[in-house]
């Protein structure tokens, strides 16, 4: 019989190994799933994981998809460490896209250097404002930020739909629900000729550095971590919880808003009824897979970006629904959460020795 026995202290090693275990099991399960569905396993594996990154263009696309995931996940990691459960990054991303896009449309045909910085600023502010709502409701009324930020995501999606069907619709667009195409001055510079890789990728790396410095080199980062691990200790130490909630949410709103603006001013180039394939939700998986650490998030972001590309590639070559991406993302998070049990518990073979050592009751029976 398999039992779980608590470790004296969390295993650091397992913290690093668990994501790898989860990845391997996800790959194996994916192959079993494909085999069961009658999809040729070898071809599916190739289409999903090899083909997308077998060309320079594919690699650049990996960067295009990974950038928003990494930006948001770094910010989410900081909040999650402080026990601030913002799961509405998708909504904050959308608001960033709306505000940045609206500025671009306001300055339509203005060919000036200041358009793009203004758009970025608007995107950041839009995301922050949307994140400020759950922060305000949590600090003033004690309303659970999980539920409020989630509800706000749906409101944001509807708001975007409303705007592209109405005020921001292309006046010459035959009533299609989309805005004008953004002008050259309002689109992000490409950093690699012939690809869609834009300076958003550099922004993402910049945010990784900020996140790392913040968490490991500043008093604020320390306060965030203490608050998450031992709220009472944090309170005795004089860290104001409300300030940490505000900071976590606003920082995430800023990053997600910028990511949204990057999508609108980058690969998409206009406002559409949908501007993100769920980056804000996938970033939650990225944050966990990356161990809530900025450097880990970079690797996790690349893995998750590959799952998007793999889904698209499998759709083209194997005619699988693009939603198969979700199957892999969901499985990966399941296995990761399951593997994480190894950080705090040891797997023991044999019967529970409850009679002699009552402490072994701590283990959850499998």
């Amino acid at each position, binding site marked *: 019989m398999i039992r779980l026995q608590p470790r004296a202290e969390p295993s650091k090693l397992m913290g690093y190994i668990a994501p790898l275990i989860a990845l391997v099991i996800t790959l194996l399960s994916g192959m079993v*799933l494909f085999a069961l*569905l009658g999809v040729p396993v070898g071809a599916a594996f190739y289409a999903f994981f090899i083909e997308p990154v077998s060309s320079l263009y594919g690699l650049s696309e990996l960067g295009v998809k990974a950038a928003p995931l990494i930006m948001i996940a770094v910010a989410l990691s900081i909040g999650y460490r402080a026990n601030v*459960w913002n*799961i509405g990054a998708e909504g904050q991303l959308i608001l960033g896209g709306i505000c940045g896009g609206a500025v671009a449309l306001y300055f339509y045909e203005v060919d000036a250097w200041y358009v793009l910085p203004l758009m970025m600023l608007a995107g950041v502010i839009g995301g922050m404002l949307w994140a400020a709502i759950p922060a305000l*409701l949590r600090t003033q*009324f*004690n*309303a*659970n930020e*999980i*539920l*409020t930020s*989630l*509800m*706000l995501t*749906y*409101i944001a999606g*509807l*708001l975007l*739909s*409303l705007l592209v*069907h*109405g005020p921001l619709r292309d006046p010459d667009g035959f009533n299609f629900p989309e805005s004008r195409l953004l002008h050259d001055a309002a689109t992000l510079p490409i950093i690699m000729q012939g690809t869609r890789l834009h300076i958003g990728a550099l922004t993402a790396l910049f945010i990784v550095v900020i996140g790392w410095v913040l968490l490991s080199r500043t008093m604020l980062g320390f306060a965030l971590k203490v608050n998450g691990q031992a709220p009472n200790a944090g309170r005795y130490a004089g860290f104001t919880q409300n300030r940490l909630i505000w900071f976590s949410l606003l920082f995430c709103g800023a990053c997600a808003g910028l990511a949204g603006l990057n999508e609108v001013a980058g690969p998409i180039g206009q406002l559409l009824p949908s501007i993100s394939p*769920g980056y804000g*939700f*996938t970033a*939650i*998986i990225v944050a*966990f897979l990356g161990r809530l650490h900025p450097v880990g998030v970079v690797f996790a972001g690349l893995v998750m970006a590959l799952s998007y590309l793999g889904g698209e590639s499998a759709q083209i070559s194997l005619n*699988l*629904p693009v*939603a*198969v*991406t*979700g*199957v*892999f*993302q*969901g*499985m990966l*998070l*399941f296995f990761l*959460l*399951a593997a*994480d*049990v190894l950080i705090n518990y040891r797997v023991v073979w044999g019967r529970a020795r409850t009679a002699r050592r009552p402490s072994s*009751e*701590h283990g*959850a*029976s*499998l």
Partner: protein
Amino acid sequence: MSIDSSMLVMIGLTIISAATPLVFAAIGELVVEKSGVLNLGVEGMMLAGAVSGFAVAHLTGSALLGVLTGVGAGMLLALIFAFLTLSLRASQVATGLALTIFGIGLSALLGQPLIGIAYEGIPNYSVPYLADIPVLGQLLFQNDLLVYGSFALVLAVSLFLKYTQAGLIVRAVGDSPDAAHALGYPVLRVRYLATLFGGACAGLAGCYLSMAYAPMWAESMSAGRGWIALALVVFATWRPGRLLFGAYFFGGITILQLHAQAFGIIVPSQLMSMLPYIATIAVLVLISSTGSSLRRNAPASIGQAFHPTK
């Protein structure tokens, strides 16, 4: 434009069919949350129920087998959630989101061959004599069995939570797992059962969508109803009666926005669609403020993992 009774009946029936899946999904989640567990995977479980119920009903020609399969599929996904969060103590928020992402993907993958297939739908059942009452009879007593079932289920859950010992134990486990554990109640087993019940209800909600409401299979056909169901539980402040009211209120809003234009009311449909979410946030703020009497029914330990040794 004049409104006659047949039009009213038509609108009433569409409201019923819009509200019924919400009732099923939300009443299940209500029990889950009452036991102290927050399962954000409702949308995924609904889709699993929708696709598998439709597939089996289509293959076997039996609506009953389809519904049973859909319920089973919802429970299977709920079991994954329960195992991860209860046995392995994983984060409920993360696991629930994974369940939704997984369920959307898996149902799309499995349902691909089912797209475009027609299904006659679950037959309606007219209650003898009552169905002959003009307007009311047409509205209330000529529906499919699942609609009647949704009312019976809400009543049953309400009575169960309020008047039975088992219901009291569920509430105790949700309010204070430590005290319940100290009294000798099996906290984890209760939460397992509640989570499975939630999965069964979500599966049933999915079946209603693919076998009665539409009836067909389409990718992501639940279209956010799982999230509305989650909102609904909070909106109803964890009370089955209010939940029933809320489901018809939310369902009514979605239907009215379809008809609003016909009545010459020019409100963008997106604004109407926002209402359930805005209302839920407002209710959440009201019940969260300390000292609010609405707070009495909120399960105190919701979302927290239970460690039997603490």
